[in-house]
């Protein structure tokens, strides 16, 4: 394999496929390397696909991409041990084409996306692990794979190797990941007849519901849970920060089991058949945790660059957009006959800064720290909210005014007035921040 390519893309996930497709489509000589048996066989997601990001790369994706259901309703639940309070947002507007969000199954979607790369002229090699980057001084000149005579060379390497990216770290581009910046999610997929899903969730054919959950479902850890409807299956999972997992004694699978046994969730998956159990990390450190994303002969896209908006559960779209921008940067340099030096690749970071990716991450840059310092958001408040709802809803001969006083008292007893205001203020500031 002594051939030289314009670009080598490591990884065939959302970021890698977006980068490889964009570059190949523009006529660059692209080699993409994926360690899985097929693209998607190593990848885990909830999974919600945001149409906008893929549409900007493949406008006609709806015609051939494997999509499960388009989403028409979002539920947000705050749970305590036996109940939930929440909100529903359902809109007929989401039920009109072109649809805005879909559920997908990553193993199928990634395979499809990768086929588009091949069709655009990119060379995709699977079952091959990149072991390290080949350097000439400070400059990346290629990759070493685990194949025989497996060194390959390129003008530029795009690292789209996901959250647990070993390559940039081995090359010394940035430090080891920190437990406070990374969440561990575990999930299962449960199969049910299509009609059962549609009647249980009050939806028609092709329509879907997402439920985002917070509160005691994470056993006091900083994290969230989710439940999404696919065509003939339901995916559900729970994720918490590694720094919190480290401090306690519940195993991830026990946490998932507790979630499934919760009285608000159990009936939704009753009678289903579990067909896969998966785990994956999510980089949730936000803006402050973003590593250097370019250098001499290399760029980083997707989860490997911490491009995840944990507050809004967006990741795949940031991955696709950063992959696309990385490829576009490269195409422009090639067209102008410029080399892939750090100086020229600086444009990549500038373009990221100007995109929704960095703007959103910057806006929420204080959030991770606030949540780390305020465990009451995951313990006390969910319980108080649920108790308050219970008190108001239960009819027991006590007048409502007394009940209100009781609720106010319980909030104050659990957290002082300054504490409550402080938390509200911190949250407000974090959402306002720019």
């Amino acid at each position, binding site marked *: 394999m002594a051939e030289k390519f314009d670009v080598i893309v490591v990884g065939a996930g959302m970021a890698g496929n977006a980068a490889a497709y964009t570059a190949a489509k523009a006529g660059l000589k692209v080699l993409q390397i994926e*360690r*899985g*048996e097929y693209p*998607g*066989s*190593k*990848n*885990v*997601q909830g*999974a919600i696909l945001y149409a906008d990001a893929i549409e900007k790369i493949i406008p006609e994706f709806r015609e051939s991409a494997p999509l499960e259901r388009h989403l028409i309703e979002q539920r947000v639940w705050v749970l305590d041990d036996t109940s939930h309070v929440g909100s529903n947002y359902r809109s007929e507007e989401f039920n009109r084409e072109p649809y805005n969000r879909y559920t997908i*199954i*990553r*193993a*199928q979607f*990634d395979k499809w996306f990768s086929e588009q790369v091949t069709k655009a002229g990119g060379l995709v090699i*699977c*079952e*091959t*692990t990149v*072991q390290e980057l080949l350097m000439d001084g400070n400059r990346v000149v290629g990759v070493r*794979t*685990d*194949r025989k005579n497996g060194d390959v060379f390129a003008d530029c390497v795009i690292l789209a190797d996901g*959250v*647990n990216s*070993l390559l940039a770290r081995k090359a010394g581009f940035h430090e*080891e*990941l*920190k*437990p406070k910046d*990374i969440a*561990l999610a*575990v999930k*299962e*997929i449960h199969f049910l007849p299509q009609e059962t899903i549609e009647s249980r969730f009050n939806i028609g054919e092709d329509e879907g519901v997402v439920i985002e959950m917070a509160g005691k479902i994470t056993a006091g850890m900083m994290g969230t849970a989710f439940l999404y409807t696919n065509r003939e*299956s339901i*995916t559900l999972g729970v994720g918490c920060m*590694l720094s919190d*997992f*480290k401090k*306690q*004694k*519940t*195993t*991830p*699978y*026990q946490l998932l*089991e*507790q979630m499934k*046994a919760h009285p608000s969730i159990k009936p939704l998956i009753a009678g289903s058949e*579990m*067909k*896969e*159990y*998966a*785990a*994956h*990390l999510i980089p949730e450190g936000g803006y402050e945790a973003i590593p250097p994303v370019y250098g001499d002969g290399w760029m980083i896209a997707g989860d490997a660059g911490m491009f995840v908006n944990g507050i809004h559960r967006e990741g795949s779209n940031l991955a696709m957009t950063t992959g696309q921008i990385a490829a576009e940067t490269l195409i422009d340099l090639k067209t102008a006959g410029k080399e892939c030096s750090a100086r020229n690749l600086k444009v990549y970071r500038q373009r990221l800064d100007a995109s929704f990716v960095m703007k959103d991450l910057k806006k929420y840059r204080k959030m991770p720290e606030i949540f780390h310092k305020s465990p009451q958001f995951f313990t006390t408040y969910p319980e108080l909210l649920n108790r308050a709802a219970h008190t108001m809803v239960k009819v027991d001969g006590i007048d409502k005014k007394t009940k209100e006083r009781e609720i106010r008292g319980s909030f104050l007893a659990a957290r002082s007035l300054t504490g409550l205001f402080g938390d509200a203020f911190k949250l407000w500031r974090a959402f306002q921040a720019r």
Partner: protein
Amino acid sequence: MTQVKVEEKLFQNRYRVDAGRPHIHIKQPDLCANHCTEQQCTTCCPAGCYIAEGNGRVVLITDGCLECGTCRIICDEHRNVAWEWPRGGFGILFKFG
């Protein structure tokens, strides 16, 4: 709450095990036994690959590994986990992901 057995979950998964070539190693087993009081790997690993033995030692069997990377990151005090991806094509093969 009854304790769930992780093996029952892993049983649903598809693997191609690279027999005799585990991709993760404990660098110095003595360090786990004598200097690590928490042994978080034994609770945090979502596949239950790390088992605390009665004598304070930790045994690692990677066959059910989900390749998440947790054990590498949480062992931040001792950095006692040598972690590589499995060879291309081996390891967990998600059907749905």
